[in-house]
Every structure is written in C-alpha cells, then in structure tokens.
C-alpha cells in the first residue's frame, strides 16, 4: 500500500515541469503534497520552498536544526533564436550532453512539445553532435506558427514508468530526492521528533547549487544533508571504479568533486543504518557534486553530507532508479532523525 503511494508520488513529481530558474510548476506541486505535514512553509528570494517540521527537543534541550535539501530543478534547454522556418536554437541550462539530445522529446512549461533535431545530412548522424548543431522542432512549417519565444525553457519529456523495482523518468535527477523528502515528511507526520527538520526543495542546483547557497545561509543549520542522485558503476562494460550499484541501498557520500563529507555526520548515519539493518553503499564520486557543496560552505561552515539514490543514465532523457534504494534512503533518514545528533 505504502509502496504504491510512493510510486504515485514519484509519478506526479517526475512529470511536473521545472527547469533551473523556472521551478514554478514543480514548486506548486510539492507545496500541495506537503500541506498539513509541516508547521511552516515559505518561498524565498531564489524560489526555494522552505518547510519546517518543528521538533519537540529532547532532555530539556531544544532540537537541532537539520537541513535536508533536494533540488526541484532539472536540466533543460533555453530558446535563443527562432529561425525563418520555425526551428528553435537553444542554449543548455545545466549539464546537457549533445549525445543525449538528438531525437529526444522536450516539453515547454505551457505543454508545447518538440523533438531535438540535428543539422546536416545523413553523415552527421555518425558524429558526436555539439549543442550548436541541434535545434528544437515543434512541428511548425513556418515561423508564424511558433508560439514559443526566445527565453522560454524546455525539459526532456517522457511519462514516468515503473517496471518491477525499476523506475524510469527523464527528471529523476533530482525529483527522486524530492520524493524522498516528501515521503519522509509523511512518515514523520504524527510522530514525535526531537529535531527541527528544515525540508528545503531547492532551485538552480544544476547551474551552480545556487538555491542551496542562499537557503543554507538563511537557515543556518546545525547539520545539513543533500538528497540527490548519484551515478552507478554497474554498467555492462564499466570497470567498477564507482562502487555504487542499482538496488543495493542508499549511497552515503564520502566525497565528490565539490565536497568531502563531514566524518562525524557520516558516522551517525552509518550507525543508524547498521542498527536498523538499512542497506547502504559508500559513495566516492569522481565527477559532479550536489547542494551539499554549497551548504557546507555557508556562513562559517556547516557539517554536511549527502544521501544519494543510485541512478543510471543521469542527465539523459531516461534515468533509472530502484524503489528499494528510495525506500532505504527514507528509512535511513527516519532512523537518523530518531537519534541524538551531536557532531
């Protein structure tokens, strides 16, 4: 029963629109999901959705401020030019790979869809494409038929699909982190907790962890955890330089290109996982980073780590996660918040 609730939540969150800087739709979807689950909710200057589930404190002490951040934004394409034939040139918003674009369906905030086309003849198909050599085709036959404007943004679009334990969506990075955070708030509902949990659905992560930068400053948390996806090392021909596998549990960040996790905070998470028998993996990622990078550097420094849901094909139109890893992430956060936090 609970499993199907999470699946339906994942469908709603992955199918909502929200490219970096243009997160209005996904924000309103999440806001509706968490209504009644939190004590306070606000939208800040950068568009972060900041929700507080207040804790009761413990042993006469006030609870610690725990910031949990999942980013709402997904990578996308911004229209830079509309030509006389009605084709749209675009700039990347975040880390868009040319290889992943050709033939992809994209969707604008107003529902307009398009296909990413490739310049040149048949020979161009055998070469690694650059973004400059591609365009969005909205099916127009002349410019007058195009309602899209320069500056409009589009995201890779495909409906959510569940297949066994595997879940597919173009926006798993990082809607699955948002799913973990919303489901955590659901599980905390009606439950006594000691700590003040700041559930922050951040903006503009994909273009420089910007929302986390300002929201971490405002909250000034005692500890912070980013909830995001990570790559896996389990492809058919991948040497397992990355010891993270789909379906083997939540990944605990040790290090990535942007940060080294706080050792004491990681020890608390490991202790909670081992005590509760929650499957986890140790993640050492050699590319990329998360909101944890920005939160760690807020003010005079915040003890920070990240919990990752392993995902295959990150930043492509068809990203895969495993629901068992999602469940492990939620369970670990519940176990962590049930315990004293001192780092």
């Amino acid at each position, binding site marked *: 029963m609970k499993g199907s609730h999470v699946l339906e939540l994942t469908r709603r969150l992955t199918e909502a629109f929200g490219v*970096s800087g243009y997160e209005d739709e996904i*924000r*309103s979807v999440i806001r509706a999901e968490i209504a009644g689950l939190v004590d306070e909710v606000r939208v*800040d200057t950068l568009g972060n959705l900041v929700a507080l589930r207040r804790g009761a404190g413990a042993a006469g002490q006030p609870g610690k401020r725990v910031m949990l951040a999942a980013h709402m934004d997904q990578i996308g394409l*911004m229209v830079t*030019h509309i030509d006389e034939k009605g084709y749209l040139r675009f*700039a990347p918003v975040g880390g868009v790979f040319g290889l992943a674009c050709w033939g992809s369906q994209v969707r604008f905030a107003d529902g307009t869809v398009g296909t990413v086309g490739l310049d040149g003849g048949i020979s161009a198909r055998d070469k690694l494409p650059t973004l400059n050599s591609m365009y969005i085709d909205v099916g127009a036959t002349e410019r007058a038929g195009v309602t899209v404007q*320069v500056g409009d943004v589009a995201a890779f679009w495909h409906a959510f699909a569940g297949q066994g334990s595997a879940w597919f969506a173009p926006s798993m990075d990082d809607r699955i982190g948002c799913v973990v955070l919303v489901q955590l708030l659901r599980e905390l509902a009606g439950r006594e907790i000691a700590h003040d949990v700041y559930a922050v659905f951040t903006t503009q992560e994909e273009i*420089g962890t910007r929302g986390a930068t300002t929201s971490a400053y405002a909250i000034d948390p005692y500890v912070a955890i980013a909830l995001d996806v990570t790559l896996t090392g389990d492809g058919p021909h991948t040497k397992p330089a990355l010891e993270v596998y789909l379906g083997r549990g939540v990944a605990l960040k040790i290090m990535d290109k942007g940060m080294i996790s706080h050792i004491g905070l990681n020890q608390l998470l490991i202790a909670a996982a081992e005590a509760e028998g929650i499957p986890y993996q140790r993640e050492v990622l050699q590319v990329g980073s998360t909101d944890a990078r920005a939160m760690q550097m807020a003010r005079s420094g915040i003890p920070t780590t990240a919990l990752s849901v392993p995902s295959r094909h990150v930043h492509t139109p068809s990203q895969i996660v495993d629901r068992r890893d999602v469940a492990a992430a939620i369970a670990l956060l519940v176990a962590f918040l049930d315990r004293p936090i001192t780092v």
Partner: protein
Amino acid sequence: MMALCDRLERLSNAFGPSGRERDVRALLRAGIAELADRIEVDALGNLIAYKTGADPEPRLRVMLSAHMDEVGFMITEIQKSGLLKFQPVGGLDPRMLPAKRLVIGDARIPGVIGAPPPHLQSAKQASQPPRGSGGQPVELDDLAIDIGAESDKEAEAKVKVGDYGVFATQFTVLSRDSSWPTVRGKAFDDRVGCAMLVALLAERYPVDLVVVFTVQEEVGLRGARVAAYRVEPDAAISLEGTICDDLPRPPDVDLTPVTRLGAGPALTLMDRRLVSHPGLLKLLRDTAEAEGIAIQYKAPGLGGADSGAIHLTRAGVPATVVAVPCRYIHSPASILNLNDMENSVRLMAAALRRIGREHLERAG
C-alpha cells in the same frame, strides 16, 4: 545626452584594470560628491554612494552597480632584450593582441605588442587573414610588449614587474547624428555603466538608493560579492556594457545576434551566472512599456555580470542586469550607440520611481 557623452569620454580614457581602479574611483568620487548623501570606500576598493529615499520609512533599499575595472595586462617579466612578458588581466583573446598599443604603469609608458611584419610571411600565409586577426592561432607565450627599450636595464628604469597596462585608446565621437550617435573607445565594459550610475544619482527616488562602483569584476565578480554583503539590498540591478555581434552574416546563417546596436537597453533573462528575478524583469518590461522605451533581450546563456555574485549574497537578493550593447567588447576599441545609453538611464530612473515590494516576490 552631451553630459552622458562627456562623462563616458573621461571614464573611458581613465586607467583602471582590475585591482588598480583608483584613477577611475577618484574620477567618480569627484563626480558624485554633490549627488550622494554619503560616500564610502570598502576594503576591496568598491566606491559606495548612499542616497536616502523620499518615501516615509520603511523604504526598499535598491543597489545599483557598475564595475570600474577594465580588462588589461600585468607585466610578469622583463627580458634581456628589453621586451616585456605579460599576463592578461580578465578575458582577452590572444588573437586580437598583436600590433596593439598600450600604456603601462603610473608613468603611462607607451608600448606596442609585437607582431611579425607581412614581409616575413609566406605567400600562402599572406593570402590568409593576418596572423592574430583570427586566421591563425596566437599563443600568449608568443607575444611580448615592446616599449622601445634597448635592453633590460633601460626597460627596468621605466617599468617594473607587477605594473599594469591598458589599451592606449582615446575616446572618439564617430557620429553626431541624433538618430544614430556612435562613439568609440576602450573600457566601455563597464565605464558605460559607471557613467549611467552617475546620471542616475542626480535624482532622489522614493526608495533608498545605494550605488556601488565595483572592483575586480573582470577577474571573478569579486568586488560585488563583498559590497552586496555590506549593503544587504532588497533588490539589485547591475548596469553593464555587453556583447554586441550584430554585424552582417553570411546569407545562409539564420541566427539572432546576442544584442543589436541601437535597439535599446538589453535585458538579461539568463546568463552564465544568473537567472534574472522574474519580478524585476516584469518591473523593467512594464516600465519600458509605460515609458515607450524599446528594449531587447540579450541572447541567453552568455557572459556574466556583478548580479551573478550579488544575488547569492546572504539569504539571496532579487537581481537582474540592464546592459548597453557594445561592439568589439574587451578589445582596444568598442563602439556603442549613445541612444542605447540614454534610454537605459531613462528606463532605470523610471523603474526606480516605480519599484515596490510586489516586484520582489515569487509565485507560491
């Protein structure tokens, strides 16, 4: 218009590469002494001018910024031959540098970046665009500055390692035609912003205005970062000189230029450092419409301005950029249209009269 042009001329001719903005700062400080209520200079060298608003408290505090620094050169080595090796300060295209005139240091020692004469190039080379004009790659390592010294000893008497250089370009009016008034000069990025800020300080607005002339923008938006931390603005707008590539293209190329000369103030939707705040964009659009000022949008995804640092300050600041198109930016000679500059000032002044808390909010 003439006041703006005169101010731009003096600012454009001033010497002010990133980290050595003091001449520009002195010029500006004198220019705003009678216009601001209070003036300070912070630890990094930002010049900050405060002008209290006319509305009763509480008032919004709006920060406008423009950077004083320009791209330039720093001398890194004096060679036995008397030639000077250098590092660029800010974004310079090495292909553009050969045969360009510079002035170096406080004594404004004139020099030129050496280039091989056409006589020494093969017929094949000569049929191609000249070395350094985009035809062949030029490495910074191949380039040196010649100040006409016979030896290192003679050069050292004039120039020291660590001295700065800037392009030796004097401001020139190209066209006085009021429908297309154009001027040429160096450092329009961002002395055009500085000149506009001085003009904007002449008026007292309903809101508290904090005008910041920043340092070290070209090397990483450094001055703006600390200035915004100090000022804690409710909203921030950077005034810039920006990329303009509206020259004729081959007939089969169907692409929008980044901006067009003479097409009005250029608004930023998204650049490499900022997604503009939707409320401020609406303010500028509505203001332009009400005032009958034509605006254009800068092609998304390119460049970055001080607002990129300002908007991430503390708990976040609503921010955007308004820019004047400048052809041949970051070169010895940029060209801009004074009408774009005047219309940018009109737009900003009208926006400052209009801005309210409703422009700083986001949809739920």
